[in-house]
């Protein structure tokens, strides 16, 4: 397995090279564009960099969970509404707990509820995919619908559940030493996930299952149990992201994660992961997230008409996958 993982890392370095190149090209183009159009810098503006990092932060947390799933050869389509369900659950728990305790313990209880609800939804995905053997594309789509309905039910039919908690507000909209708080929030998840995928035995199992499932079974990995854990992890990430959403918008909302689902998958793929499993890294996903956030944010700054922004992001995703395929052929 050591030699296999070594040759894999050569692929991974190459994949990351291309995604970094993409990001650099995007930043240089935007810099030139803003210089010409407004006579201002894009890249060397602390406001712009922070806004991009904040924009990337919550989708990145979902994308990190998705990275584990995709590397293992699966896909999790439920994360958008699992995020929504977890955010509504956290908001309701926070509103129930707040009259009875201080801000911090109430927030801890609500945070635990968000992660727990997300992880439970993920565990259901894991059961459907690993134990019942339903293809992940279909199984997680079913959970997508279930989570969506439950989120709206739990929100009482309304579109949002407003929350008030000073610590939560600071987490979403405050700054620490001039750096906006959501950036720290995502960074912590990033570091833990990086360590888990790269250095823990669990991470090695994820690659092994994605690269060759039957081989993984033969060497004695309990594949079903590992797959269940992988989907649980993805759900828990959606729960963590839900807490980030609650913090940023001072409300839980069923539809909060819907726009992030496809973006988060694109982030993983731009980061060099293969949808067939076996390759992909957390750093790659980070770069994918930064690329999408930079383009989405930058095109507004240079005032490109909104519909051209979709087209641009779409083209970037296709280009990234084409490069990914070419890389497979020529290396």
């Amino acid at each position, binding site marked *: 397995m050591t030699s296999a993982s070594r040759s894999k890392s050569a692929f991974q370095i190459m994949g990351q090279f291309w995604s970094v190149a993409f990001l650099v090209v995007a930043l240089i183009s935007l810099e030139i564009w803003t210089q010409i159009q*407004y006579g201002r810098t894009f890249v060397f*503006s602390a*406001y*712009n960099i922070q*806004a991009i990092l*904040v*924009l990337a932060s919550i989708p990145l947390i979902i994308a990190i969970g998705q990275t584990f799933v995709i590397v293992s050869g699966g896909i999790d389509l439920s994360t958008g509404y699992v995020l929504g369900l977890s955010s509504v659950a956290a908001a309701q728990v926070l509103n129930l707990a707040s009259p009875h305790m201080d801000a911090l313990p109430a927030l801890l209880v609500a945070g635990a509820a968000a992660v727990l609800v997300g992880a439970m939804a993920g565990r259901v995905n894991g059961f459907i995919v690993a134990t019942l053997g339903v293809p992940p594309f279909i199984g997680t789509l079913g959970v997508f619908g279930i989570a969506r309905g439950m989120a709206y039910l739990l929100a009482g*039919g*309304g*579109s*949002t559940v*407003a929350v008030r908690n000073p610590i939560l*507000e600071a987490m*979403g*909209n405050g700054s620490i030493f001039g750096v906006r708080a959501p950036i720290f929030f995502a960074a912590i998840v990033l570091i833990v996930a990086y360590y888990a995928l790269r250095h823990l035995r669990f991470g090695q199992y994820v690659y092994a299952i994605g690269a060759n499932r039957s081989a993984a079974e033969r060497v004695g990995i309990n594949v079903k149990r590992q797959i269940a854990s992988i989907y649980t992890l993805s759900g828990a990430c959606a729960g963590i992201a839900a807490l980030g*959403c609650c913090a*940023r*918008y*001072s*409300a839980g*909302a069923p*539809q*909060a*994660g*819907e*726009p*992030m689902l496809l973006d988060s998958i694109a982030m993983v793929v731009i980061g060099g992961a293969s949808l067939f499993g076996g390759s992909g890294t957390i750093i790659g996903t980070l770069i994918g997230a930064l690329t999408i*956030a930079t383009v*989405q*944010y*930058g095109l*507004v*700054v240079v*005032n490109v*008409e*909104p*519909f051209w922004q*979709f087209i641009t992001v779409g083209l970037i995703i296709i280009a990234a996958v084409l490069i990914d395929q070419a890389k497979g052929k020529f290396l």
Partner: protein
Amino acid sequence: MTLSRRRFFQTSAMGIAAVGAASGASFAQDVRKPRVALMPGLTTDSYYTTLRAGAQVAADAFGLELIWQGAPDFNPVTQVPVLEAVIAQQPDVLLIAPTDTQQLVAPLRRAHDAGITVITVDTYIGDGVYQTGATDWSFPLSAIASNNIEGGRLAGKALGESVGGKGKVYVAHFRPGVSTMDEREAGFRAYVQENFPEMEVLGTQYNDNDASKAASQFEAVFARTPDLAGVFGANVFSAIGAANGVRAAGQSGKVKVCAFDAPETIIGDIRGGLVDLAIAQHPAEEGFFAVSAAVATFNGQSIPTKISTGFTVLTADNLDDPTFAKFIYK
């Protein structure tokens, strides 16, 4: 109905005349031109594209550049990142239709703190009462919007008159908790109850903005209420669905359909006889007055904290009259 229509028409006519004078006269050079950004609730809706067209008229009149940026769906999660990028463009005035009364408060305060004047159009934050200093959300200068309770009352009047002041009607509604639609429904109910003693407003039907669901709901209500006289479709899809239900039940012309909002689809349905009335809001007016207010405040003038724009009732009889046709959304 005629009176209110005429009054609203006059307000907008006066506004246009004022700007015509301003741009034509020599003092136009003394007017400092702000950089104005306009952010809709969503970019893919004819209400907001019409609002943009009205704003562009004012922007052209004042000779200023109008930044137009927004997200494809009505969701704070997609609107807030666009807002942050718009803040980076450092406009002097931000005109925005916030996608949530609570969730946009903190992000908009960031724009305010960056020295940008915030004015809300169409939707609002908090309760829409600004400049009191008493609430977290009172920092925007002005709320420019149509009064949805008044719009609902106008729908009640128009539909009530159209059914001859008697019979049963109901409201086809999107989803409880959507403030603008709840207000339309409340205004509609209040007007009918106060003015048409022989009419009855049945229970509201919620359709999740799904036209086919609204259609089958009409058929179900009609099945148990054969003497149904009319439906108020409180938004576009509710009205389109109810109208299709009326046609399926073979009741076109007998059961009156009143739609709220006037995009081309509804106008087509009026011409085809599926819809009888449409309450057109005046999004172009909102855009026009929003830009005018931006210029005024940038030049040190005071502006009202609330500007209410009007409504027009469109029917098959007045659609081709240019005085009315200009209220069809573009």
